[in-house]
């Protein structure tokens, strides 16, 4: 079970550059490790992170093995209109986690 923390400023002025922080809990198994019997431990990572702003993609990150457990991503975008900023993480073992935050743009 993944749980995610997102931080989006609740209010912003139109045209303002806002910083968005996301942190998701995920154990990360690189796929490079072997168990005590020598068998490879299957990879379990988050492959893709996508952030959409009222349906428009504003940020995307492809993740690869051995980047981070609990990946913490910070990025910025321009506050254009009031609405919803949605986040989606997808990965191995059918992982699909979503989170969203509302923003009011004056």
């Amino acid at each position, binding site marked *: *079970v993944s*749980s995610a*923390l*997102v*931080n989006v400023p609740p209010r912003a002025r139109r045209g303002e550059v806002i910083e968005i*922080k996301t*942190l998701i*809990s995920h154990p990360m198994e690189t796929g490079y490790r072997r168990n005590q019997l020598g068998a490879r431990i299957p990879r379990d990572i988050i492959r893709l992170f996508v952030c959409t702003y009222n349906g428009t993609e504003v940020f995307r990150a492809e993740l690869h093995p051995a980047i981070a457990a*609990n990946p*913490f991503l910070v990025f910025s975008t321009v506050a254009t209109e009031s609405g919803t900023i949605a986040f989606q993480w997808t990965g191995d073992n059918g992982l699909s986690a979503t989170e969203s935050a509302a923003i009011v743009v004056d």
Partner: protein
Amino acid sequence: LSGHGARLLGASALTLLAWTASAGEIPPAERRSGYDFMSRETRAMQDDDTVNPGMLGVLEGGTLWARKTGTAGRACADCHGDGRASMKGVAARYPAFDAALKRPVNLEQRINLCRTERQQAPALAYESRELLALTAFVARQSRGVPIDVAVDARTKPFIDNGRAAFYPRAQSRSSTMAAPRSTGVRASSTLPAASVTTRTGASGWPATRSPRRIRRAIRSTVSNGRASARSSAGCATAWSGSAPSRTSTARPSSSSSSCF
């Protein structure tokens, strides 16, 4: 100076303990939080809830709080309601005395008591992800609340025991040797080989680290109920001193120190 005294008067270590306890205690005004010792980066991470990975545990704990579990089919929330309100200040009172067990329990133990008694669910393993998450969630509701552990007639003996175990940490091994006896585990009548070589520094047993290792060994001995018969577990047998394993207590220091 106090360390010197303890070493010289190892035989009367117990009477000395009371003295060193008061002498070694840091006045309340000079006590510093672990926060003061963190680097600037770590502090910044801890100060920002959206960056602090510990908050993931709090988040998960909040989910677990509402999840029904056990044969009773009850969630924490079914008895305690919204944890964000009902758990305010609770963690600051722990460890708290449990009347049924007649000893103090910490927050994790309290959660597990709730699980086994109210939810009729198996106790969670100490330091397991779930127990850490629930504990973090409960403790989060006491942020900023001063620690308020009750010091009364019931808890006093335990606090005194803790003080006696805490303060001789950096002293000679002769005083820490009192610990196994007072916890009801019979210490070996002869010192294990490892402790003799400590003085020479050859066995890689820094004196400051050994009490924790001793406690771990005691814990494993106690949890086994008796001395482990496995000679490979030299760490457990070395300190148990009970009859069946006495032959194995004279193990070379290298094997004892490697498994601690």
